[in-house]
């Protein structure tokens, strides 16, 4: 479904990711592991079209999409839930969700349906639908960010560190929700530092170090890999 071949991205003279190869099959959960600054977010931004490629190509459903504008990618079904959430803080929860359906703006009944689905997934958002997004707690903002991404009916949903800064109980809920989203047929690409939780729901994973993929394999292979265990699981 998604394929990155030999992708490199530079920020000025600094190479953020180099020669990255990733393949995601439809229906999978694929996790990108790695420390801060290892290149996970840059990879996401390259797939979304926010960053331009300096080398390589990205294919989505067998079409080259490297360097295509972000709004075109959202229309094609690639949606990113970015790190830092990037909500509209002075808009209400419901307005944020409606903006998520921007690419479907002419289909009113469809938007209503999606809204109901998101509220079912995250009841707390329904409760707070009239509050400003900026007034929500961290966990609620994360739910809103995921909900907003779902409103565009993605085929591929990219979640950038959905568990960062959340209380352990909320993290657990978050991963349950992520599995549920996947069961509904949405392919997931997940960037995480919480390797244990991420690998427990993932099909396969890639480990980033200094902008390069150093280890890759199925979730079980990575969980069994000593280097990965030492670096990211701490056991």
């Amino acid at each position: 479904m998604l394929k990155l071949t030999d992708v490199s991205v530079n920020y000025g003279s600094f190479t953020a990711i180099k020669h990255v190869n990733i393949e995601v099959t439809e229906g999978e959960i694929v996790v990108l592991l790695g420390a801060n600054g290892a290149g996970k977010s840059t990879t996401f931004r390259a797939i979304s079209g926010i960053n331009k490629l300096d080398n390589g190509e990205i294919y989505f459903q067998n079409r080259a999409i490297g360097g295509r504008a972000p709004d075109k990618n959202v229309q094609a079904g690639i949606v990113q839930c970015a790190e830092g959430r990037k909500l509209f803080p002075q808009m209400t929860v419901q307005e944020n969700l409606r903006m998520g359906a921007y690419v479907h703006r002419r289909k009113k009944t469809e938007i209503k349906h999606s809204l109901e689905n998101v509220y079912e997934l995250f009841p707390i958002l329904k409760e707070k639908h009239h509050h400003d997004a900026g007034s929500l707690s961290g966990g609620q903002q994360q739910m809103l960010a995921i909900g907003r991404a779902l409103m565009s009916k993605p085929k591929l949903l990219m979640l950038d560190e959905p568990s960062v800064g959340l209380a352990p109980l909320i993290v657990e809920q978050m991963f349950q929700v992520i599995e549920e989203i996947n069961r509904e047929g949405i392919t997931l690409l997940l960037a995480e530092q919480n390797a244990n939780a991420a690998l427990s729901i993932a099909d396969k994973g890639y480990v980033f170090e200094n902008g390069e993929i150093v280890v890759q394999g199925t979730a079980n292979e990575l969980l069994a890999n000593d280097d990965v265990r030492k670096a990211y699981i701490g056991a």
Partner: protein
Amino acid sequence: MEILLQQLFNSLTIGSVYSLVALGLTLVYGILHIPNFAHGALYMMGGYITLTMMTAFGFNYWVAMFVSILVVGLIGVLLERFVFRLLREAPPLHDKIAAIGILLFLEAFAQFVWGADFQTMTSPYGQVVTIMGLTFTMQRLLIIVSAIVVMILLYLFLKKTFTGASIIAMSQSREGASLVGININKVAMLTFMISGGLAAIAASLASPINLVFPGMGHLVILKAFVIIILGGMGSIPGAIVGGYILGFSESLGATYISNDYKDIIAFVLLVIILTVKPTGLFAKGER
């Protein structure tokens, strides 16, 4: 008492014009995060185009205003596309320099085409009316009513339509906007178009009670900056309320202090408010 009422009415007139100009300025600031110094020049162009349409082509006042909205809106779009978009990655100072350059260019252009003379625009609504002891020309009433209608339409557009909401969304989070599939370039052009259109409306409404000349935008734009600083940069309600506050203080100041100091009042107000509340009256909580 009668003087006070008369002055309140006058202040509504000036306040309406100020609010319209400030709205255009604040919309662009919200999206671009640069102060568009050329906005006063767009206002001036709006005045001249309406005037030319009426005198040279014999158009009706409203038709002339409509043409003016389209032309100045188009100038706004061109500025975004061929000046500010190219500077998006550049340091913010470059936008400001470009804006000043556009201002100088448009003023020189107006002087070249229309000359430096002060010109009058004759409104078809010059008749004097007296209601409850208030004496005013229809044009002044027209300014107030039209400005309020325009503001309500703008509010409905921004609040009730997806396209309008995309402007607000982009001003709150540019990256968030592109992540939900909003085309940033289109929204930026649209915002400049609306901003230019608002300037053209304001100039077309105000010109019959003022004069049309190449420097007519100077004082207006300075005051519009005072207004959006008062109201909080990028805040839409702030621009409206700020416009009327300035209109009121100027009119009352002109009556009860001195007409000569009318234009200073705006800046004294600015100093006082920035001392007491440096973020502006309606500033957003976090930035």
